[in-house]
Protein backbone atom coordinates (compact mmCIF):
# COMPACT_ATOMS: atom_id res chain seq x y z
CA UNK A 1 0.00 0.00 0.00
CA UNK A 2 2.65 2.52 1.09
CA UNK A 3 4.98 1.13 -1.55
CA UNK A 4 2.48 1.57 -4.36
CA UNK A 5 1.79 5.15 -3.25
CA UNK A 6 5.51 5.84 -3.21
CA UNK A 7 6.08 4.40 -6.67
CA UNK A 8 3.13 6.38 -8.00
CA UNK A 9 4.64 9.60 -6.62
CA UNK A 10 7.97 8.65 -8.07
CA UNK A 11 6.51 8.26 -11.54
CA UNK A 12 4.33 11.34 -11.32
CA UNK A 13 7.08 13.61 -10.02
CA UNK A 14 9.37 12.07 -12.63
CA UNK A 15 7.21 13.62 -15.31
CA UNK A 16 8.31 17.23 -15.97
CA UNK A 17 4.80 18.42 -16.54
CA UNK A 18 3.44 16.93 -13.31
CA UNK A 19 6.44 18.22 -11.39
CA UNK A 20 5.84 21.72 -12.72
CA UNK A 21 2.19 21.65 -11.65
CA UNK A 22 3.16 20.22 -8.26
CA UNK A 23 5.64 23.04 -7.71
CA UNK A 24 3.00 25.55 -8.81
CA UNK A 25 0.76 24.36 -6.00
CA UNK A 26 3.45 23.99 -3.36
CA UNK A 27 5.69 27.02 -3.84
CA UNK A 28 3.28 29.89 -3.01
CA UNK A 29 2.91 28.66 0.58
CA UNK A 30 6.17 26.79 0.95
CA UNK A 31 8.50 29.75 0.66
CA UNK A 32 6.75 31.94 3.25
CA UNK A 33 6.49 28.91 5.54
CA UNK A 34 10.21 28.15 5.11
CA UNK A 35 11.17 31.74 5.95
CA UNK A 36 8.83 31.74 8.95
CA UNK A 37 10.16 28.46 10.39
CA UNK A 38 13.77 29.52 9.88
CA UNK A 39 13.15 32.92 11.48
CA UNK A 40 11.37 31.26 14.43
CA UNK A 41 14.24 28.86 15.06
CA UNK A 42 16.93 31.51 14.71
CA UNK A 43 15.20 34.15 16.86
CA UNK A 44 14.41 31.56 19.49
CA UNK A 45 18.04 30.49 19.51
CA UNK A 46 19.33 34.06 19.53
CA UNK A 47 17.07 35.60 22.12
CA UNK A 48 15.31 32.94 24.18
CA UNK A 49 17.59 29.93 24.54
CA UNK A 50 19.75 29.98 27.70
CA UNK A 51 23.47 30.70 27.67
CA UNK A 52 25.96 27.84 27.43
CA UNK A 53 27.84 27.50 30.72
CA UNK A 54 31.11 26.71 28.97
CA UNK A 55 31.15 28.82 25.81
CA UNK A 56 28.88 31.70 26.83
CA UNK A 57 26.82 33.36 24.13
CA UNK A 58 29.13 32.50 21.24
CA UNK A 59 27.56 29.04 21.18
CA UNK A 60 24.44 30.65 19.66
CA UNK A 61 26.20 30.36 16.30
CA UNK A 62 25.28 26.68 16.55
CA UNK A 63 21.72 27.49 15.47
CA UNK A 64 22.96 28.44 12.02
CA UNK A 65 26.19 26.42 11.85
CA UNK A 66 24.76 22.95 12.49
CA UNK A 67 21.68 23.31 10.24
CA UNK A 68 23.91 24.62 7.44
CA UNK A 69 26.40 21.79 7.86
CA UNK A 70 23.74 19.08 7.98
CA UNK A 71 21.88 20.63 5.05
CA UNK A 72 25.07 20.67 2.99
CA UNK A 73 25.70 16.99 3.73
CA UNK A 74 22.09 16.04 3.07
CA UNK A 75 22.14 17.94 -0.22
CA UNK A 76 25.23 16.11 -1.38
CA UNK A 77 23.72 12.74 -0.49
CA UNK A 78 20.56 13.75 -2.37
CA UNK A 79 22.65 14.57 -5.43
CA UNK A 80 24.31 11.17 -5.20
CA UNK A 81 20.94 9.41 -4.94
CA UNK A 82 19.65 11.41 -7.91
CA UNK A 83 22.82 10.46 -9.75
CA UNK A 84 22.16 6.78 -9.06
CA UNK A 85 18.51 7.09 -10.15
CA UNK A 86 19.64 8.80 -13.32
CA UNK A 87 22.31 6.21 -14.01
CA UNK A 88 19.97 3.25 -13.56
CA UNK A 89 16.67 4.55 -14.95
CA UNK A 90 17.86 7.50 -17.04
CA UNK A 91 15.23 9.67 -15.40
CA UNK A 92 15.25 13.19 -16.81
CA UNK A 93 13.99 14.80 -13.62
CA UNK A 94 17.00 13.42 -11.74
CA UNK A 95 19.33 15.36 -14.05
CA UNK A 96 17.36 18.51 -13.38
CA UNK A 97 17.41 17.92 -9.62
CA UNK A 98 21.18 17.43 -9.45
CA UNK A 99 21.76 20.76 -11.12
CA UNK A 100 19.13 22.42 -8.94
CA UNK A 101 20.59 21.10 -5.68
CA UNK A 102 24.25 21.99 -6.25
CA UNK A 103 24.22 25.81 -5.82
CA UNK A 104 22.34 25.94 -2.51
CA UNK A 105 24.22 22.93 -1.15
CA UNK A 106 27.55 24.57 -1.92
CA UNK A 107 26.28 27.75 -0.29
CA UNK A 108 25.33 25.88 2.89
CA UNK A 109 28.78 24.28 3.02
CA UNK A 110 30.31 27.75 2.67
CA UNK A 111 28.06 29.10 5.43
CA UNK A 112 29.01 26.21 7.71
CA UNK A 113 32.69 27.05 7.10
CA UNK A 114 32.25 30.81 7.60
CA UNK A 115 30.19 30.47 10.78
CA UNK A 116 32.56 27.78 12.06
CA UNK A 117 35.49 30.13 11.51
CA UNK A 118 33.73 33.01 13.27
CA UNK A 119 32.79 30.69 16.12
CA UNK A 120 36.38 29.50 16.31
CA UNK A 121 37.72 32.96 17.19
CA UNK A 122 36.18 33.23 20.68
CA UNK A 123 36.46 29.46 21.29
CA UNK A 124 39.97 28.65 20.06
CA UNK A 125 41.42 32.13 19.74
CA UNK A 126 41.86 31.71 15.98
CA UNK A 127 39.57 31.84 12.97
CA UNK A 128 40.92 28.66 11.49
CA UNK A 129 41.80 25.49 13.33
CA UNK A 130 42.31 22.19 11.50
CA UNK A 131 39.48 20.71 13.52
CA UNK A 132 38.10 17.38 12.27
CA UNK A 133 34.59 18.68 11.61
CA UNK A 134 35.66 21.90 9.88
CA UNK A 135 38.19 20.01 7.76
CA UNK A 136 35.55 17.48 6.64
CA UNK A 137 33.25 20.38 5.79
CA UNK A 138 36.04 21.98 3.75
CA UNK A 139 36.42 18.77 1.74
CA UNK A 140 32.65 18.61 1.25
CA UNK A 141 32.79 22.20 -0.02
CA UNK A 142 35.53 21.16 -2.46
CA UNK A 143 33.37 18.24 -3.62
CA UNK A 144 30.54 20.69 -4.31
CA UNK A 145 32.92 22.99 -6.20
CA UNK A 146 33.95 20.04 -8.37
CA UNK A 147 30.33 19.25 -9.23
CA UNK A 148 29.58 22.91 -9.98
CA UNK A 149 32.70 23.25 -12.13
CA UNK A 150 31.70 20.17 -14.12
CA UNK A 151 28.16 21.46 -14.63
CA UNK A 152 29.52 24.80 -15.85
CA UNK A 153 32.05 23.19 -18.18
CA UNK A 154 29.60 21.00 -20.11
CA UNK A 155 27.51 22.98 -22.60
CA UNK A 156 24.80 20.36 -23.15
CA UNK A 157 22.35 20.54 -20.21
CA UNK A 158 21.42 16.83 -20.25
CA UNK A 159 25.01 15.71 -20.39
CA UNK A 160 25.95 18.17 -17.64
CA UNK A 161 23.27 16.79 -15.34
CA UNK A 162 24.23 13.18 -15.95
CA UNK A 163 27.95 13.82 -15.54
CA UNK A 164 27.38 15.75 -12.30
CA UNK A 165 25.20 12.91 -11.07
CA UNK A 166 27.88 10.30 -11.65
CA UNK A 167 30.49 12.50 -10.00
CA UNK A 168 28.34 13.10 -6.92
CA UNK A 169 27.54 9.39 -6.70
CA UNK A 170 31.27 8.64 -6.56
CA UNK A 171 31.62 11.54 -4.12
CA UNK A 172 28.94 10.21 -1.77
CA UNK A 173 30.77 6.91 -1.42
CA UNK A 174 33.89 8.94 -0.79
CA UNK A 175 32.30 11.26 1.80
CA UNK A 176 31.98 8.42 4.30
CA UNK A 177 35.65 7.49 3.92
CA UNK A 178 36.69 11.17 4.01
CA UNK A 179 34.87 11.62 7.30
CA UNK A 180 36.52 8.57 8.81
CA UNK A 181 39.97 9.42 7.45
CA UNK A 182 39.84 13.01 8.66
CA UNK A 183 38.90 11.89 12.18
CA UNK A 184 41.78 9.43 12.15
CA UNK A 185 44.13 12.12 10.84
CA UNK A 186 43.00 14.48 13.57
CA UNK A 187 43.61 11.97 16.34
CA UNK A 188 47.01 11.19 14.80
CA UNK A 189 48.17 14.78 15.07
CA UNK A 190 46.51 15.59 18.42
CA UNK A 191 44.88 18.87 17.47
CA UNK A 192 42.85 21.07 19.78
CA UNK A 193 40.65 19.12 22.15
CA UNK A 194 37.77 21.57 22.51
CA UNK A 195 35.19 20.83 19.86
CA UNK A 196 32.76 23.48 18.66
CA UNK A 197 29.88 21.06 18.80
CA UNK A 198 30.46 18.77 21.75
CA UNK A 199 29.14 15.27 22.14
CA UNK A 200 27.30 16.13 25.35
CA UNK A 201 23.54 15.86 25.09
CA UNK A 202 21.79 19.20 24.71
CA UNK A 203 19.08 20.33 27.11
CA UNK A 204 15.67 20.60 25.41
CA UNK A 205 15.56 24.41 25.65
CA UNK A 206 18.56 24.49 23.30
CA UNK A 207 17.67 21.45 21.24
CA UNK A 208 14.17 22.65 20.29
CA UNK A 209 15.27 25.88 18.54
CA UNK A 210 18.12 23.95 16.91
CA UNK A 211 15.71 21.41 15.42
CA UNK A 212 13.34 24.17 14.30
CA UNK A 213 16.07 26.10 12.48
CA UNK A 214 17.30 22.84 10.96
CA UNK A 215 13.80 22.20 9.59
CA UNK A 216 13.68 25.80 8.36
CA UNK A 217 16.96 25.49 6.46
CA UNK A 218 15.79 22.21 4.87
CA UNK A 219 12.57 23.91 3.75
CA UNK A 220 14.54 26.84 2.29
CA UNK A 221 16.70 24.30 0.51
CA UNK A 222 13.56 22.71 -0.97
CA UNK A 223 12.31 26.13 -2.11
CA UNK A 224 15.58 26.95 -3.85
CA UNK A 225 15.64 23.52 -5.50
CA UNK A 226 12.06 23.92 -6.75
CA UNK A 227 12.74 27.36 -8.22
CA UNK A 228 15.92 26.24 -9.94
CA UNK A 229 14.34 23.01 -11.20
CA UNK A 230 11.41 24.96 -12.64
CA UNK A 231 13.74 27.30 -14.51
CA UNK A 232 15.71 24.41 -15.96
CA UNK A 233 12.57 22.42 -16.82
CA UNK A 234 10.87 25.29 -18.59
CA UNK A 235 13.95 25.94 -20.67
CA UNK A 236 14.54 22.30 -21.53
CA UNK A 237 10.94 21.61 -22.41
CA UNK A 238 10.37 24.96 -24.14
CA UNK A 239 9.43 23.20 -27.38
CA UNK A 240 6.92 20.83 -25.80
CA UNK A 241 3.19 21.47 -25.86
CA UNK A 242 2.64 21.84 -22.12
CA UNK A 243 5.15 24.67 -21.81
CA UNK A 244 3.66 26.46 -24.81
CA UNK A 245 0.22 26.26 -23.24
CA UNK A 246 1.51 28.18 -20.20
CA UNK A 247 1.52 31.54 -21.94
Amino acid at each position, binding site marked *: MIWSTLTRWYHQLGSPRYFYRFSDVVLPWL*WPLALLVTATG*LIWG*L*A*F*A*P*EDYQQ*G*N*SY*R*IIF*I*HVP*AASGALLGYVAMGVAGLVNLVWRMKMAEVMIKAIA*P*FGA*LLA*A*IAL*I*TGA*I*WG*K*PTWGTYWEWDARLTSMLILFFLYLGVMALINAIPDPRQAGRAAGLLSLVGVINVVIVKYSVEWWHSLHQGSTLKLVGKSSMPPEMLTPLLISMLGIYL*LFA*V*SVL*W*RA*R*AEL*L*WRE*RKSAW*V*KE*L*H
Partner: protein
Amino acid sequence: MYFESFSAFLQMGTHGVYVWSAYGISALLIVGNLWLAYRGEQKVREELRRLARREQSGQ
Protein backbone atom coordinates in the same frame (compact mmCIF):
# COMPACT_ATOMS: atom_id res chain seq x y z
CA MET B 1 13.56 36.64 26.37
CA TYR B 2 16.69 35.31 27.96
CA PHE B 3 18.48 38.69 28.07
CA GLU B 4 17.67 41.41 30.59
CA SER B 5 17.75 44.32 28.18
CA PHE B 6 17.94 44.96 24.47
CA SER B 7 21.50 46.27 24.70
CA ALA B 8 22.52 43.10 26.55
CA PHE B 9 20.91 41.17 23.70
CA LEU B 10 23.00 43.08 21.17
CA GLN B 11 26.21 42.74 23.16
CA MET B 12 25.78 39.05 24.12
CA GLY B 13 28.40 39.32 26.82
CA THR B 14 31.56 39.86 24.84
CA HIS B 15 30.51 37.69 21.92
CA GLY B 16 28.08 40.04 20.15
CA VAL B 17 30.40 40.75 17.21
CA TYR B 18 30.88 37.06 16.47
CA VAL B 19 27.27 35.98 16.83
CA TRP B 20 25.82 38.89 14.88
CA SER B 21 28.37 38.76 12.09
CA ALA B 22 27.81 35.00 11.70
CA TYR B 23 24.04 35.50 11.50
CA GLY B 24 24.33 38.57 9.28
CA ILE B 25 26.58 36.95 6.70
CA SER B 26 24.50 33.78 6.65
CA ALA B 27 21.21 35.65 6.25
CA LEU B 28 22.64 37.76 3.44
CA LEU B 29 24.01 34.75 1.58
CA ILE B 30 20.84 32.66 1.96
CA VAL B 31 18.47 35.44 0.94
CA GLY B 32 20.76 36.37 -1.96
CA ASN B 33 20.90 32.79 -3.19
CA LEU B 34 17.12 32.36 -2.96
CA TRP B 35 16.62 35.64 -4.81
CA LEU B 36 18.91 34.44 -7.60
CA ALA B 37 16.98 31.16 -7.83
CA TYR B 38 13.68 33.06 -8.01
CA ARG B 39 14.98 35.58 -10.56
CA GLY B 40 16.39 32.76 -12.68
CA GLU B 41 12.96 31.21 -12.96
CA GLN B 42 11.32 34.58 -13.75
CA LYS B 43 13.92 35.28 -16.44
CA VAL B 44 13.28 31.96 -18.17
CA ARG B 45 9.56 32.68 -18.18
CA GLU B 46 10.09 36.17 -19.62
CA GLU B 47 12.34 34.71 -22.28
CA LEU B 48 9.76 32.07 -23.19
CA ARG B 49 7.03 34.69 -23.41
CA ARG B 50 9.24 36.77 -25.69
CA LEU B 51 9.92 33.75 -27.89
CA ALA B 52 6.19 32.96 -28.06
CA ARG B 53 5.34 36.53 -29.10
CA ARG B 54 7.98 36.50 -31.79
CA GLU B 55 6.65 33.19 -33.08
CA GLN B 56 3.09 34.56 -33.25
CA SER B 57 4.07 37.77 -35.05
CA GLY B 58 6.18 35.74 -37.44
CA GLN B 59 3.22 33.70 -38.58
